[in-house]
């Protein structure tokens, strides 16, 4: 038996997707949100030794080509010529579902029907005479219950039977006389060479579509005479009946359908009050609707962020561990570019992206659940009034809300918008909904430049600026580039359901999977490139002799240690303490050079311990031992304290208690007060100062290296360009880096400002920023970060979702330009009036 290609068609919300899943067992989107199945999906099924390829067509209400989905569906039926079309009919809403069936019958395709959710319909008091239905439709009608997998075998059998027979004669719809004449007239004018559609469709069908003014077919006609004649006929028919011919024809189809239904369907109209209506009375209530929606959204966001925190930490730790594992493959001192690539480029880059996965999974889980219940359609309805005012559609609201989390899933969420103009406008303004990755930038900059009382306000201001840009941008786009009627809001509200766990999980998983795929491909590639740009070329010779600088610091440090040793009477001129410190530094050197498992480490440790024993056991060494023990004790206590207070707020009860415990532990160290003061001085002044000075040298070296690298050079090259915004080459470099992912800005600033590992909590980086820039410049950095493109992933998704490079390129140019102009205006205006200087 040959493979049978089955096209699965049906209205949105007809349960088509559940039937598809039941037939193929393939995981796929299930949802109540109209239009969720936009892509063409395929699956395979087996039955009695026969194989079936099942193609899931987009859910449509008709085949009249007024939306991209309808075009896709129609072209598939005509061009791919599936062996049989199975239409899924929602049994509770048969008449409207059959409208699509009639259009397919007119197209002359072989059909079978799945009367889906017949159990629900029966419960509502609707009874079907299947034989009569099937007789009218000239096609088998099989009752199914998609979500329970009932009826699929019979459906496949029916499909196989129909596929093996020749196309039957369907009932002809009786159009009014005038319409029939007009169609015949157009048909006579067709020559078979009337443009790309003519060859693919039968003349009669084509003529009818031309009379209907089909959006796809009429503009593609070569023979303008035909189009002109059709227009004339349309006008005369409209004048005659007062209706557009396509409406007259639609009414004729509905007329035939209702005739059939009155014979084959019996309704007992008793259970009129449905649960959904009762729920809607509350959730769509004029007064309560909006507050309920806002509260729900608040709960969702709260849940997403609190629940995501622990797994985010796990992922961070796991990638940290993976990084050190990978680094451990090389000798510690090895200067291997491959190791840097693997640890900093690949593992660091991917980890930085995957860390948002818990957020994304939870957010999508929540949205999949709300979609599954049918509430999402209501949310769009509730927001339509507001969104309409800014030229957008109610359905734009959910993606815009998602935009505060991450622009990437938000752009994917615009798929629910049917109108292309609405959709493109939404995608274009989405990046201004300040995404989560920008938050670290604000968190770094706001405390650096602004007094504490203003922190929350500044953050609020930045978000509001983003929203204002999005609103104004949408309005402008809608009245210029994307002019045209915004489709007035009309949307089917599916009945409320309790979504099945499987449906929610699959929907969530599909989307999260797309995010992971992106992390694995585009973002990985870009992070490698950006990493290479900041790491190469290596500087062969440095401007400053860092080795000498380090030696000088060590010498100064040793003098200070010796002085303390003298004061405390630890050996001749403090020699005990000096030798102890030397041994410690040597051990630190060993730690830097070798992994613990390497023989060099073991050897170094052995030498170190022997040295300590020798120092402690020499005459007068006991005092040194006391000193060393106290030092180690304090070290331990500090570590314990840091661990205990992690995440605690300073001044909170737990924090104060930990402080008290630490004080008590310190007081319990029973050594001579003079010696203890010495230990404290050693730790707080001498050792800390040494670490700081060495760190400065390391950072200066890294900074010089970065300035030499490709991004550093690009930054320097761009300096004249970014100057009007108040930026220097360092900021320019950070901006380049932030194109990989916005939050990279913070790390890049850390590198240029040579503060080593920077994060948004980094006080030393804040000091540097505060010392080098004015608050106005700080604000400009945030403004630019907000208004410019979020990241390369956004571009990649925009390309995929719009199917071309036009929009992504427009986005790159447009967002950069808007951000540049706006930031320049703010900076120039601010400096002219001395605001925030």
């Amino acid at each position: 038996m040959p493979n049978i290609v089955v096209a699965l068609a049906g209205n949105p919300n007809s349960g088509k997707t559940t039937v598809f899943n039941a037939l193929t067992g393939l995981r796929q989107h299930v949802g109540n949100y109209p239009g969720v199945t936009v892509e063409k999906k395929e699956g395979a099924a087996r039955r009695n030794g026969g194989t079936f390829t099942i193609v899931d067509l987009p859910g449509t209400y008709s085949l009249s080509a007024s939306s991209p989905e309808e075009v896709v569906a129609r072209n598939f039926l005509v061009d791919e010529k599936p062996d049989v079309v199975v239409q899924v009919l929602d049994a509770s809403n048969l008449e409207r579902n059959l409208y699509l069936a009639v259009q397919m019958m007119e197209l002359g395709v072989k059909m079978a029907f799945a009367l889906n959710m017949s159990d629900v319909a029966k419960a509502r008091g609707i009874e079907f005479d299947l034989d009569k239905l099937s007789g009218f439709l000239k096609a088998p009608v099989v009752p199914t219950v998609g979500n329970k997998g009932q009826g699929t075998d019979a459906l496949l059998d029916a499909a196989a039977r129909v596929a093996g027979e020749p196309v039957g004669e369907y009932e002809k719809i009786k159009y009014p006389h005038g319409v029939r004449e007009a169609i015949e007239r157009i048909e006579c004018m067709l020559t078979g060479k009337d443009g790309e559609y003519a060859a693919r469709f039968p003349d009669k069908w084509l003529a009818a579509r031309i009379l209907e003014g089909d959006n796809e077919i009429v503009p593609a006609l070569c023979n303008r005479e035909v189009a002109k004649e059709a227009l004339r006929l349309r006008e005369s028919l409209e004048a005659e009946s007062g209706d557009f011919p396509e409406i007259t024809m639609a009414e004729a189809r509905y007329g035939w359908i209702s005739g059939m239904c009155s014979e084959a369907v019996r309704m007992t109209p008793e259970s009129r009050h449905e649960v959904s209506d009762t729920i809607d009375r509350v959730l769509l209530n004029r007064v309560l609707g909006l507050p309920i929606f806002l509260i729900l959204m608040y709960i969702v966001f709260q849940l997403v962020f609190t629940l995501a925190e622990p797994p985010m930490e796990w992922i961070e730790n796991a990638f940290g561990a993976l990084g050190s594992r990978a680094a451990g493959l090389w000798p510690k001192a090895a200067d291997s570019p491959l190791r840097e690539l693997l640890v900093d480029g690949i593992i660091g880059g991917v980890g930085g992206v995957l860390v948002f996965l818990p957020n994304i999974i939870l957010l999508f889980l929540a949205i999949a659940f709300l979609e599954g219940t049918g509430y999402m359609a209501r949310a769009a309805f509730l927001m339509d009034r507001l969104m309409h005012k800014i030229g957008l559609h109610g359905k734009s609201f959910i993606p815009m809300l998602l935009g505060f989390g991450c622009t990437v899933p938000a752009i994917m969420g615009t798929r629910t918008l049917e109108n292309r103009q609405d959709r493109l406008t939404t995608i274009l303004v989405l990046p201004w909904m300040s995404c989560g990755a920008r938050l670290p930038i604000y968190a770094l900059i706001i405390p650096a430049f602004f007094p504490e009382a203003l922190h929350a306000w500044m953050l609020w201001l930045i978000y509001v600026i983003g929203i204002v840009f999005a609103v104004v941008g949408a309005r402008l786009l809608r009245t210029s580039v994307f002019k045209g009627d915004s489709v007035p809001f009309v949307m089917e509200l599916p009945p409320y359901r309790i979504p099945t766990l499987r449906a929610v999980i699959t929907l969530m998983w599909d989307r999260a999977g797309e995010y992971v795929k992106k992390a694995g491909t585009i973002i990985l590639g870009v992070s490698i490139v950006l990493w290479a740009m900041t790491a190469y070329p290596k500087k062969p010779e440095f401007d400053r002799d860092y080795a000498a600088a380090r030696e000088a610091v060590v010498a100064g440090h040793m003098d200070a240690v010796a002085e303390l040793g003298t004061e405390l009477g630890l050996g001749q001129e403090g020699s005990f303490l000096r030798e102890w410190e030397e041994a410690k530094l040597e051990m630190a050197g060993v730690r830097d050079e070798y992994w613990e498992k390497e023989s060099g480490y073991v050897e170094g440790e052995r030498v170190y311990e022997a040295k300590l024993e020798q120092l402690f056991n020499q005459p007068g060494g006991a005092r040194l031992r006391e000193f060393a023990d106290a030092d180690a004790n304090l070290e331990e206590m500090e570590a314990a304290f840091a661990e205990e207070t992690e995440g605690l707020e300073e001044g909170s009860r737990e924090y104060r208690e930990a402080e008290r415990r630490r004080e008590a532990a310190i007081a319990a160290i029973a050594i001579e007060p003079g010696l203890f003061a010495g230990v404290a001085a050693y730790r707080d002044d001498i050792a800390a100062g040494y670490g700081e000075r060495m760190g400065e040298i390391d950072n200066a070296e890294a900074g010089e290296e970065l300035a030499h690298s490709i991004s550093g050079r690009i930054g320097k090259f761009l300096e004249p360009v970014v100057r009007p915004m108040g930026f220097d080459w360092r900021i320019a470099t950070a901006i380049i880096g932030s194109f990989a992912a916005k939050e990279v800005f913070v790390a890049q600033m850390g590198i240029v400002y040579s503060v080593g590992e920077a994060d948004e909590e980094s006080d030393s980086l804040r000091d540097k920023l505060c010392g080098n820039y004015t608050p106005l410049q700080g604000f400009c950095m945030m403004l630019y970060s907000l208004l410019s493109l979020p990241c390369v992933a956004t571009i990649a998704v925009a390309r995929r979702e719009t199917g071309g490079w036009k929009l992504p390129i427009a986005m790159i140019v447009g967002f950069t330009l808007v951000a540049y102009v706006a930031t320049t205006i703010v900076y120039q205006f601010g400096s002219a009036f001395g605001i925030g200087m």
Partner: protein
Amino acid sequence: MIMAKGTGMPAMRLSRAGAGFPRRIERITGPEAQVKRLTELGLVSGAEVSVLARGGTDTIVLKVGGSRLALASGMADNVWVK
């Protein structure tokens, strides 16, 4: 004025119709694309509709056949019922 067929009574805009009562659609006016869209969703002369809810002055939820539709008020203005 749009008259209800056969009764000589003027038809009423759906946007003005009270909630709860089932009404019969007389005809649908307005821009072509809109009329077509509504027709495909089952709003066709002779179909029975009832208003389920109103979202402020702008939007309306109605029931036609077995489905609930949300309509902007501009659209409901163009649906004439009796």
